[in-house]
Every structure is written in C-alpha cells, then in structure tokens.
C-alpha cells in the first residue's frame, strides 16, 4: 500500500477528512521548501502536492504562475524538486504527490523520473496536461515503480471520461470543482455535487476536490461530500505576501489549522 492509500484508509477508519496542501517547490527558494512543508504538516495537512515550476503553466491562475516564475528564477528544476522531496522525506512520512506539466517530464525521461521519484520518497504523480486517453506509457512507468497516478475529472467530463479517470487513477481521484484554472474564489460552484455523485457511482476510490478552495467555510461545505479537499493558491498567496517575513512558517501553520477547523468535529 502506498502512503497515499494508507492515508485515506486511516482517515476512513478514524472517520476524518483530509486536507491536501499544494506548494510550488522552490518558491521562494529550494532551500526553504522543506521548512514550509513542515509548517503545513504541523498545522494538520495530510498530504503535500509538490508543484514542479513550468514556464508556461496553462492550467494555473496568476498566483501559482508567479510562484513558478519565482521558483524558476531561484534555479528550481525537476531534478531539484526531487532533491527537495528527498529532504522532506528524511524528516517526515507525510505522503508526497508530484504535480507537474508534461514537458519537463519528457525532457527528464519518464522511466528515469519514476525510478528517481520513488527513490526520493515521492508517492504518486499528477500530470496536469496529459490526457488519460494518451497516458498509457506514463501509467506503466509510474505503477512499475510503485507510484500512484492521480487523474482529474472536471464538470465538463463526459461519462466515458469519468470511467477512464476512475480506471487509471490510483490513491485517489482529483475532482475539479469548476471549469477554469487554479485560483481562489469567494464561493464554490454548484457543479461539484453532481460530479462527485457521478464519480461515486463509478468508483470506490477516495475523492478529493480542488480548484478555488481557500477558506474554512469552503472546507466545511465540502466536508460532507468528499474525502479530502485540496488548497493551493491560498497557501501560495500567503507565501507570496510574506516572502521576507521570518514568521512565514508560523503563519502557514496557523492558516492550515484554521482551514482544518472548517471540518469541525469531523477533523
């Protein structure tokens, strides 16, 4: 069982819901990322999505785009992200999901990435701009090194596509809360409930929902519906606003705890 599957089994056993935190690795610098992840974990994050910065992040909104630019400027490469993951793994057993665009992966080599990621203690991978229909080689490489593959389902996904996403996802399925790119929103879209219901009919895999979730009340709203929520841009924005602030880690920990409180007693 991977750390990701283990996490969801434990959450279920304990009747709890999970909080998945996204960070762009290397933002503001590669050295800083392990400490930021520790802060998230202290605050109650259950799983870390480690974003690989990319020059042309078409699925991301401006907040994560800017984080990617900072990380690239600080010299972050895919190889560097693996090093960062290794550093985190030396200190913690928190599940790590690599979040990346396809081109850096192609350049690095699919098999080489799967092998090196597994060796660094990464537990799974989410390839944001590869369609599940064309991902056979990738799925094979990841699974042969014991890594989970997480795919996304969106409100626009057809029934046929939901089936494919469910079949090739392991660990959990990532439900996109609305059409569009990553980024905070005031309120959640009504599209998520029918999407989750459709997916529940297809698969017994844990379901996480992301895109636009940034407040404890969003977490509260989704707690009854899914097994975990993903928060990204809200963390990244907090980092952006406190780049030179020595209390950044403390703030990150506090905000994580606040989000987790959204679940109320269920957390």
């Amino acid at each position: 069982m991977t750390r990701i599957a283990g996490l969801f089994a434990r959450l279920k056993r304990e009747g709890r819901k999970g909080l998945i935190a996204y960070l762009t690795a290397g933002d503001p610098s590669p050295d800083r990322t392990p400490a930021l992840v520790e802060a998230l974990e202290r605050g109650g994050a259950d799983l870390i999505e480690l974003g690989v910065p990319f020059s042309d992040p078409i699925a991301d909104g401006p907040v994560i785009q800017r984080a990617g630019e900072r990380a690239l400027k600080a010299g972050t490469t895919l190889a560097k992200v693996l090093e960062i993951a290794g550093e985190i793994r030396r200190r913690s057993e928190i599940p790590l999901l690599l979040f990346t665009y396809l081109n850096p992966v192609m350049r690095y080599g699919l098999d080489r990435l799967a092998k090196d990621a597994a060796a660094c203690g990464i537990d799974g991978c989410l390839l944001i701009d590869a369609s599940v229909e064309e991902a056979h080689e990738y799925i094979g490489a990841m699974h042969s090194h014991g890594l989970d593959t997480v795919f996304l389902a969106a409100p626009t996904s057809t029934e046929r596509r939901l089936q494919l996403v469910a079949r090739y996802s392991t660990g959990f399925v990532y439900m996109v809360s609305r059409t569009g790119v990553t980024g905070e929103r005031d309120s959640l879209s009504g599209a998520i409930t029918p999407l989750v219901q459709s997916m529940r009919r297809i698969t017994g895999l844990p379901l996480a929902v992301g895109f636009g979730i940034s407040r404890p009340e969003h977490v509260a709203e989704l707690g009854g519906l899914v097994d975990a929520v993903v928060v990204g841009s809200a963390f990244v924005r907090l980092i952006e606003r406190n780049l030179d602030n020595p209390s950044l880690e403390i703030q990150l920990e506090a905000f994580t705890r606040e989000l987790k409180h959204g679940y109320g007693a269920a957390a």
Partner: protein
Amino acid sequence: MAPVEELEAAYLAAREDPGFQSELAGLLRTYAGRPTPLYFARHLSEQLGGARIWLKREDLLHTGAHKINNCLGQGLLARRMGKRRIIAETGAGQHGVATATVCALLGLDCVVYMGEEDMRRQRLNVFRMRLLGAKVIGVSTGSCTLKDAISEAMRDWVTNVADTYYLLGSALGSHPYPMMVRDFHKVIGEEARRQILEAEGRLPDTILACVGGGSNAIGIFHAFLGDPVELVGVEAGGRGNHLGEHAARYRGGAPGVLQGAYSFVLQDAHGQIALTHSVSAGLDYAMIGPEHAYLHDQRRAEYTAASDGEALDAARLLSRVEGIIPALESAHAVAEAVKRAPAAQDRILLVNISGRGDKDIDIYRENLKELDEP
C-alpha cells in the same frame, strides 16, 4: 477534453455540410477578396538573375493577410455551434484584426489577448481591433508575446467554455485546431496550383513560405504535397544563434509538449520553454505547428531560417523593385528566395506573400532610419 471533442464533432459535421461550405466560399469571394492573384515578379527575378519568381498575393486580402481565411471559417463554425463570445490570441495583430473583423461581420462578441510587448510593437493593429469593436486584453506574463497570449486565451476558454469559442489563429494547439486551420487555409495552395499551371504550364520547382506556427505555409503547401515540388518553410533566424535570440525551431529545438500540442519546440535542458526573438512578432513563437514537424520528419518539407537583417533587406528590395511592401513575416520567405534565386536558373520559385507591411511601418522606420529623415 470534452470541449475539444465537441469542437471536433462540430467541425467535421460542418466540413461535410454543403450549406456551410457554400456560405464560406461566398464570403471568401465577396468579402475577403479571393481568389488572390498570382503575380510574376519580373523585376525581382531579373535583378536576382536566375529563377522565375512568382508571388501569391495573400497580402491583398481584406484585413491585409491570409489570416482572414481561417477566421471566416471558424467564425461561421462558432455561430453554428451557438457560441456568442469569441476569444483569440494574437502576435503581430493580424489574426486579432481578422478575428475582430469577422466578429463585427457576424455580430459576435470579441476578446483578443495580446502580449504587452507585441501591443507596443503593433500599436496600429491594437487600435484597429478596438475600432472593430473588440476588447484587447494585454498579457504581462512570461515574455509578454504570442506564447503568453495563447496561454491566457486557453485559461479564458477553459473557464468560460459553455458560451465561448476559442478562435485559434495558427496551425497549433490541440487537435482539431491544426487540422481545422490547415483546412481553412488550403485554398491558398489550391488556387496557386491552378494559377501557376495556367501561367507557366507546369508546376513550380520550389514553394517558399514563412513559418511561425505555420498557418500560411501549411495552407500553400497542402495542395502540393503529392507533387514533385520542393517545399521550404522559413523560420525566424532573429539576431543570433543562441537560445533566446531567434525562433528557428530547427536550430536547437527538440520534441516537446506546449499548449496542447506535441511538436518541435525551443526549450532548455530542463524542459522549460525558451524565450524567443524575432523582429517579426508573428514568427516569435517557440513551437512549430505539429504538421510541419511531421513534414520535416518525413523529409517532405525543408525548414531554414532568415535573420532579422535578411528579412529587412528583402522587404526593402521587394518594395523598391516591385512596389510591394510585405509584412515582416512574409519578408522572411522573400529573403530565402533572394538567397536561392541566383543559382536556380530557369527554375520557378513560388513565394507566399502572406501579408502586407502596413502594420510593420513603425518597425521599418526604426530599422531604416536613413529613409526617415525630415
């Protein structure tokens, strides 16, 4: 995936629909100005002393470039799909102007994304788009050029997919865009083939076209794919050979994935997409259209590059000896003709003049200062 699948289904149905095709053909004829002439460049040919050079005059189309062919086709498709809001990206502004024009014609809302660097370089086209009723949104991420404008248009599309049609302007992006853009431009080659057979009684030896994403090139190449005709795409050689100084994908590029397409792309050792440079905004893009990469791999087409300086010289020459001021993009194809013609005695070179130079006057002025004294 659902939106591109919906688009593909709608396009394939439209392609088979005689009503759609006849409305498009009618607009191309009466609104855009097709067929465009094939002109024998006698003075240019004499001056270079070798090949007989023919020019396909896409620069004479309404809005000043070939881009209108594709915009009319996709505009009609959008209307047929019931999408009332059109978004587009633009580099040089020609595709943005053509999109704004078609939206005005068809009564559709129009939003154009344009890199802020390109807005500065192509101020006149920004104004034209606004005059046509389009909203121009500046993009200030990355290199502030075409690549970033495409990313921003894609973000808009995935957010507003229910009522919005993304009118992509080059032979790029995910399927069905490269196929659809090629289909709407293949009329260029079909006409040129008929015209050259009529005028010369034989096929040309070589066809030259500039290649950014590659829409005008694939448009003129397509009808000749089965013929014994040499096809040459001319990329932007920029101001040097180092990564970042040019947009010549076959000078240091590698296979990769950008913005939904798998093709040849300029990138660094870590898979980050490289910044590019060209004096011509329309060629300033890191990836070549996937069908061109295929033609390259099949050795059916050859890709070369012309530098900023060679393109400027070619534009000046064509203006002076033929009275045709080409777009800077098209000037790259002319530059390759200038290189090849002297050694190509009795051969026929066909050059696609994809656009006219009005939009580039400010850049020509900056680079040809001796002509701009009071």
